[in-house]
């Protein structure tokens, strides 16, 4: 007998639906990697380099091995056959250093792993790690990316004394011609400093070798379970179908877990050697030293324009601090910056030269925005500098240069096709929210009273839903399997790997609407390579735009099948499927989804050319990226005496296409903005000249805390994307991308009466005080 009817007519997409994943998170019953315990499980502690650059003269592990409770110690010589740590990006002429999982004779950055101690208890492992005696010969290091390019700088890798990993050139239009004819040219060096992503859950791995099956179970806090399976299998020389990756609850990623690290393969190696489960949980200090950093740009911008404010050409020399190695996508990140160089503006003459530079530091890679915050910060600062030069209003110069809403799809000089947009709309809305004209009047009065009040605008565009496969290193499609179970309940298996974005809810909203079932009747599974078909993962604001679309198409296939079974059961050749039931258009009789699903599994009778069961799998290849956009405005004031900044208002108007769940979208915007404020105001990964990481703890590295954050006034315009049938564009990175230029433009505006034209991030009180008192 079929289960009770489960149909609904109320649409869930577009509503503020409470998240389905929350009950386990608010009760402390979710399972993160460090929550996994297994019988006989051992613990690993990794011995790391205290030097930015050094030769390893010798390693003595005897003291560690003699410690009661220690089972094994492995050094680089033991793990030579493992790896290398993979770089998935390729560029012409790219120099790729061999990246061993444990260093063999030389270390290249603070925290570089050299040995792993395995013990029965995490305290013993850590004690014993201190008893591994390494004799070092410290070498000169270089951590400043421009100094690394100077003649005679210490060579990070001795085989490449110029520290240059690659040069990359991209050009569109007639840049030299435009500069020759320019009525005005503005130039500025702009830094996007190194940042530490700092997911609240550090990385962690549990590896469990099943010797009878010759299968490795690997539990890892990652954004890309399937890619990890493929790559770690290669590193360990295991058949891919003998590696099972499980992504349990993941406590944030922001790009830092879009990677395959040495430790994942290393723990697999250890588990296979010791025949016991092994756990490694990264300490926060290790997270600062050894998990990828973000940003690390020194950019030299030149913008050519007419005196009426029309931007005619943009030229950029981009120096990218790569760190000592390439992690998964390291060299590809600055190429994303180049793609987004024109921002929202119709400038068709673009030229960029990237030099990728090795330094004695942990590799940079994708961190929330990955290349687009740098590009947006660059163009949005340059537009303000140009406006100041021409004595134009920063809003007016933007309106003048926007790609018009009737120009889509719009081909950029960097080879992209912007899908859809109405770039004036969010700026108009933001100006209205802030009462711009009155506010400028208020600012005038404040200035007359000697106050340093600033109004900063940024209008950002971003490249999301990454992306079409030819544009990505590993395939840019996404997959979904949708099952209607015999009871009519719906199970979705998605290839994306959410870790805070709430897709168990948003996907359930879409599926519930499409199939006419209740939200609670949909279960969304992800992150286990033994359960879910191959998928790409969660990054680049792609989850809903690509993964959600794959699910949508799988559901459309199922709906056809449901109609076939429905027609058979109703003895009809004219049925409609809506609101969770199939209805005979002639008789009005209907069968519920549960009745139809049950019949498909019972299979007493099959419709012609139709298989039993109710399962569909869809791999969706997107035809294009999506291009969200928006406008942020920051109203601020600077304290002359202390250099301290106070944010009076923060307005964020974002257009991320169709909104599935406004509450989740607001959460993404708030979190993104606050990470942007972190970069603009406080955060900076600082290495000293010897390669020591000076800001290596929360004590020294200022992540935003609740008291420092303004109230964020969030609003939206909604321009659907034509790239996918859901009309969604992506929102995970928008806040971060829009924020930093608005914040910096606001403070530059505040200090402009003092002649200030540009300030590099972070805008620390000391830096501001010095400018005020210069």
């Amino acid at each position, binding site marked *: 007998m079929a289960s009770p009817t489960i149909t609904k007519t109320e649409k869930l997409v577009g509503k503020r639906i409470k*998240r389905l994943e*929350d009950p386990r998170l608010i009760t402390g019953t979710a*399972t993160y990697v460090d929550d996994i315990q297994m019988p006989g499980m051992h613990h690993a502690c990794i011995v790391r380099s205290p030097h930015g650059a050094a030769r390893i003269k010798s390693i003595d592990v005897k003291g560690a091995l003699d410690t009661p409770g220690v089972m094994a110690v492995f050094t680089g010589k033991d793990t030579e056959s493992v790896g290398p740590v993979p770089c998935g990006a390729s560029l012409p002429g790219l120099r790729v250093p061999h990246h061993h999982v444990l260093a063999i004779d030389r270390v290249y950055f603070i925290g570089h792993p050299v040995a792993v101690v395995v013990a029965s208890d995490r305290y013993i492992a850590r004690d014993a790690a201190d008893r591994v005696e390494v004799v070092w010969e410290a070498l000169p290091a270089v951590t400043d990316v421009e100094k690394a390019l100077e003649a005679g700088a210490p060579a990070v890798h001795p085989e490449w004394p110029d520290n240059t990993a690659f040069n990359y050139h991209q050009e569109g239009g007639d840049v030299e011609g435009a500069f020759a004819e320019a009525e005005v040219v503005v130039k500025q060096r702009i830094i996007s400093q190194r940042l530490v992503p700092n997911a609240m*859950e550090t990385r962690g791995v549990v590896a469990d070798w099943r010797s009878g099956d010759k299968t490795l179970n690997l539990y890892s806090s990652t954004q890309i379970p399937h890619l990890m399976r493929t790559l770690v299998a290669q590193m360990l020389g295991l058949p891919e179908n003998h590696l099972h990756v499980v992504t349990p*609850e993941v406590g944030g990623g922001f790009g830092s877990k879009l990677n395959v690290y040495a430790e994942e393969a290393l723990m697999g190696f250890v588990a296979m050697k010791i025949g016991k489960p092994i756990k490694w949980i990264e300490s926060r200090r290790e997270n600062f030293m050894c998990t990828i950093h973000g940003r690390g740009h020194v950019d030299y911008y030149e913008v050519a324009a007419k005196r009426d404010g029309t931007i005619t050409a943009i030229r950029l020399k981009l120096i990218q601090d790569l760190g000592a190695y390439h992690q998964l996508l390291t060299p590809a990140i600055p190429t994303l910056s180049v793609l987004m160089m024109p921002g929202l503006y119709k400038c068709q003459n673009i030229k960029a030269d990237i030099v990728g530079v090795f330094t004695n530091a942990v590799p940079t890679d994708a961190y929330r925005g990955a290349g687009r915050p740098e590009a947006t910060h660059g163009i949005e600062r340059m537009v303000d500098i140009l406006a100041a030069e021409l004595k134009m209003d920063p809003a007016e110069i933007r309106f003048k240069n926007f790609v018009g809403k009737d120009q889509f799809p719009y081909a950029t000089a960097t080879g992209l096709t912007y899908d859809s947009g109405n770039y004036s709309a969010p700026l108009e809305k933001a100006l209205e929210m802030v009462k711009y004209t009155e506010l400028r009047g208020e600012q005038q009065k404040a200035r007359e009273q000697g106050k340093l009040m600033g109004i900063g605008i940024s209008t950002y565009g971003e490249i999301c839903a990454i992306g079409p496969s030819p544009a990505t290193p590993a395939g840019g499609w996404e997959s979904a399997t949708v099952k209607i179970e015999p009871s009519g309940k719906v199970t979705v298996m998605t290839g994306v790997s959410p870790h805070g974005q709430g897709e168990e809810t948003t996907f359930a909203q879409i599926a519930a609407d499409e199939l006419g079932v209740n939200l609670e009747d949909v279960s969304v599974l992800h992150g286990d390579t033994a359960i879910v078909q191959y998928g790409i993962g969660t990054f680049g604001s792609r989850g809903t735009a690509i993964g959600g679309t794959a699910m949508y198409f799988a559901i459309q296939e199922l709906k056809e099948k449901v109609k076939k079974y429905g027609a058979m059961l109703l003895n009809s050749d004219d049925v409609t499927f809506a609101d969770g039931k199939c209805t005979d258009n002639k008789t009005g009789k209907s069968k519920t989804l549960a009745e139809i699903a049950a019949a498909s599994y019972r299979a007493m009778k099959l419709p012609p050319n139709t298989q039993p069961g109710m399962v569909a799998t869809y791999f969706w290849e997107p035809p294009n990226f999506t291009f969200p956009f928006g406008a942020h405005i920051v109203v601020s004031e600077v304290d002359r005496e202390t250099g301290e900044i106070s944010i009076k208002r923060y307005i964020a108007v974002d257009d991320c296409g169709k909104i599935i769940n406004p509450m989740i979208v607001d959460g993404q915007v708030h*979190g993104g903005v*606050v990470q942007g404020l972190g970069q603009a105001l406080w955060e900076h990964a600082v290495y000293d000249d010897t390669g020591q990481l000076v800001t290596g703890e929360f004590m020294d590295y200022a992540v935003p*805390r*609740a008291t420092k954050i303004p109230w964020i006034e969030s609003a939206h315009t909604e321009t659907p994307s034509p790239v996918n049938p859901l009309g969604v564009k992506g929102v995970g990175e928008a806040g971060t991308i829009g924020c930093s230029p608005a914040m910096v433009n606001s403070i530059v505006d505040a200090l402009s009466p003092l002649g200030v034209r540009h300030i590099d991030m972070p805008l620390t009180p000391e830096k501001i005080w010095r400018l005020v008192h210069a």
Partner: protein
Amino acid sequence: MQKTINLTVNGKKYSDSVEPRLLLIHYLRDVLGFTGPHIGCETSLCGACTVNVDGKAIKSCSMFAVQADGRDVLTIEGLAKDGKLDPMQDAFWSEHAAQCGFCTPGMIMTAKQVIERNPNPTDEEIRHGIEGNICRCTGYQHIVNAVKAAAAKAGA
């Protein structure tokens, strides 16, 4: 060297022999299996490990298990009663105050203390109260809303 400790956790009595250097957070998580409180920094800077000891929110990475001898400990797992969520948990759910969820158990324990000490807090007082807990996902705004909502409900 081991020391025997007797304490109450989430209303149940426990007696265990522990190393004096064992941190309370490791005792709760690894020995008793209360994995709700998390370890975000081990240096008392992030607050993910916050639990309640004798009525006070404390960071359990900065306290030894032996210091909890004879005390009454409440972790996130002890909040819901008979399957009914604590109003603060409910408010975190309704206001979308959790994203990745890693800071959430510690944040909820701290937030409860904020409204216990000040039943009608302003936004600023809430922000001050949760300043010792880092959340990297939410930007804090929905957390502030949740604490306000829980306070309003308690006062209603």
